[in-house]
């Protein structure tokens, strides 16, 4: 372990140990979180600046909606030609001098990476933000094997020190207050307290510089795999991914198979849209294309570059034409930022690698619909997510599709009974009228009697006035 590097185990403590408890945990955490009005106000405030800058940047597009068409078509045509583009990408990537490894599952991916670390006799590993590595629980596996690993992205570093997974897959520590970060750095790095975000950032900067230089292996994610050229595109703001891929002698990149795009022209659309939708920027600070390890004539760079391509249930989503477009996701996080559920229940409540609306769509595919269907209900179906998505994924309809699929595979007996009763009543006008009359009278009676069971509730509220006659008879009287 590198001196001064965090010892916290970033194992997903917020994930339910037993998947059957996922729903219980969700309901429990959601109820807790919703009561924490201070936290909710803090998260809303943190997102306030995002809305303003996103709208400013969107206005710079000559036609944002048509640009979304182009972006969605670019991803659509790539995902639907994956059988052709993925081999093309791999051939070009290897022609550039990189080595590709294929992993069907999270376990295979971890084994491949641990094997590479062993072969490289790695002592210190530096990592830049990579959600796919969170998905496969890489850090815990590396630490179990005795490798020290440091997250270099500021937000991820803070989360690593806190022993928590990311709260939001783009803004990992947006829920943490600066005082907490100051205390955290004081405890782990021995720095003096400060309430300045700038000074806190500089503490992490100073701490990390030595670690980039001393690391043997750098691990990064990938935002796009360009089939035309075999390049890997990595988007970041801080420069930590650039350093991670520049100084260590081995560069390992981890990517889902769905990240392929056909060519550089598609990047010219997707890179600015990712930045605008995700963080309200014209472009993210560094958008870097890697084509293999150091080339002859170049003065620096790694000697080896490896890419681990991960399936981990993505082909199962691909096999569902209805929801195939959820593989178009470019992980900008826009749907989280606008989601009323995310803002109220918070990132940890989901218990998933990918939070928010898109996480609610894909997690049941990645981990099983039976245990994760409750996420399909974590939506008001307002459609804000679908509206925000730069690649036009039909997010809120997919939540409905998942509900339908879950009902098909594991029907809820009570729900079924309820619907059957409704059909019985609604298809018999006399019964419907009788039911309405019964309800009107009950309401009138409740208002009159104020039964003890309702007294607390009625102390601050009033029941609506019971109408004298049914709607249907009022309508008849009118015409």
């Amino acid at each position, binding site marked *: 372990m590198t001196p001064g590097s965090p010892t916290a185990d970033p194992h997903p403590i917020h994930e339910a140990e037993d998947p059957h408890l996922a729903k219980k945990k969700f309901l429990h955490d959601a109820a807790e979180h919703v009561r924490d009005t201070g936290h909710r106000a803090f998260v809303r405030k*943190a997102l306030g600046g*995002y809305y303003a800058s996103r709208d400013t940047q969107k206005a710079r*597009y*000559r*036609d944002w909606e*048509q640009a979304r*068409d*182009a972006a969605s*078509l670019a991803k659509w*045509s790539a*995902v*639907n030609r*994956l*059988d052709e583009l*993925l*081999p093309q990408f791999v051939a070009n990537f290897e022609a550039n001098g990189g080595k590709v490894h*294929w992993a*069907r599952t999270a376990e295979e991916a971890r*084994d491949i990476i641990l*094997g*590479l670390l062993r072969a490289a006799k790695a002592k210190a590993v530096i990592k830049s933000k990579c959600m796919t590595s969170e998905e496969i629980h890489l850090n815990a596996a590396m630490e179990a094997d005795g490798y020290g690993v440091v997250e270099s*992205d*500021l937000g991820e570093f803070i989360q690593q020190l806190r022993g928590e997974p990311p709260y939001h897959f783009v803004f*990992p520590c*947006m829920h943490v207050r600066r005082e907490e970060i100051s205390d955290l750095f004081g405890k782990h790095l021995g720095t003096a307290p400060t309430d300045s*975000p*700038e000074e806190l*950032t500089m503490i992490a900067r100073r701490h990390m510089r030595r670690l980039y*230089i001393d690391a043997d292996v750098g691990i990064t994610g990938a935002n796009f795999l360009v089939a035309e050229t*075999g390049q890997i595109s990595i988007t970041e*703001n801080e*420069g*930590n991914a*650039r*350093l991670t891929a*520049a100084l260590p002698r081995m560069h390992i990149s981890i990517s889902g*198979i769905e990240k392929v795009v056909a060519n550089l*022209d598609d990047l*010219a659309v997707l890179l*600015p849209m990712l930045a605008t939708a995700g963080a309200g*920027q*014209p*472009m*993210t*600070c*560094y958008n*870097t294309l*890697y084509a293999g390890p*150091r*080339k002859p*004539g*170049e*003065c*620096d760079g790694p000697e080896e570059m490896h890419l681990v391509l991960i*399936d981990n249930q993505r*082909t199962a989503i691909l*096999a569902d*034409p209805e929801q195939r*477009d959820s593989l178009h996701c470019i992980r900008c996080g826009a749907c989280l930022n606008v989601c009323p559920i995310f803002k109220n229940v918070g990132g940890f409540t989901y218990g998933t690698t990918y939070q928010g609306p898109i996480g609610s769509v894909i997690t049941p595919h990645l981990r099983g619909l039976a245990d994760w269907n409750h996420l399909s209900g974590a939506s008001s179906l307002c459609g804000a997510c679908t509206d925000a998505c730069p690649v036009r994924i*039909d997010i809120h309809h997919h939540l409905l599709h998942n509900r339908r699929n879950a009902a098909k595979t594991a029907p809820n007996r009570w729900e079924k009974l309820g619907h059957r009763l409704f059909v019985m009543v609604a298809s018999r006008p006399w019964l419907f009228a009788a039911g309405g009359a019964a309800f009107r009278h009950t309401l009138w009676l409740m208002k009159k009697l104020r039964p003890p069971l309702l007294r607390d509730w009625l102390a601050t509220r009033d029941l609506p006035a019971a109408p004298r006659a049914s709607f249907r008879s009022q309508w008849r009287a009118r015409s």
Partner: protein
Amino acid sequence: MSVSTSTTSSARDTILGRIREALRMPAPLPHMKSHAAEESATGGPKGLTILPADVARPWLPDGGDTPEERLALLTENLGKLRAEVHRVADTAAAAALLAGIAHDRGWRKVAWHGHPATEPLAAAVGCEAHRVDGTAFDKNALEACDAGITACDAAVAQTGSILVSSGHCGGRALSILPHVHVVIVSLDQIVATLGDALDLVRSRYAGRLPSMLSFITGPSRTGDIERILVLGAHGPKELIVILVG
């Protein structure tokens, strides 16, 4: 290594097999807002719809139609990104300007790479100048430098981005490790859009891509603490762009 080649090759065959199987069922086209996209979409390979490269360009942010517009837009965007922009007439003036900056800010050591655009600046900078290429690369020496001076491949008016490559701009670390990045842009390197810059990459490097190409859009930044913008997260705190011409 614990994973034998046969395991990964069978993993490859399994994954590619699953993909082929999955794609036998076609997916509906995405819901599109504009008829423009639908009308310009043409049958691509395998009869699948793709959008020709130039169709989306008029929908993205403007890149300027004339060299004057592009220069104005680039300067404006760099300013918004909190980069420092200077315009000088020629390389000699650039060298004098940089010597002044180095003196004012008390730089003790700068790093540079061998290139006609950077050499006169390194020669005149007035402090120790460490050349990163030519001899064995020394990351500790580079880390000790106050600034890295590089050439660029292109500058993008549309976004205020500077394109650097490992092949022509001193490798991977020079533009990211020192606290200040000084980049020399000659006016004829300014292009309108990202698409134009990527076209340039295609024509300049076809078949022999540099191992790294990076669009740098302002000094390094983060908003990870309470979403408050801080410059200089891990990369350069300052980006000094010297426009020559």
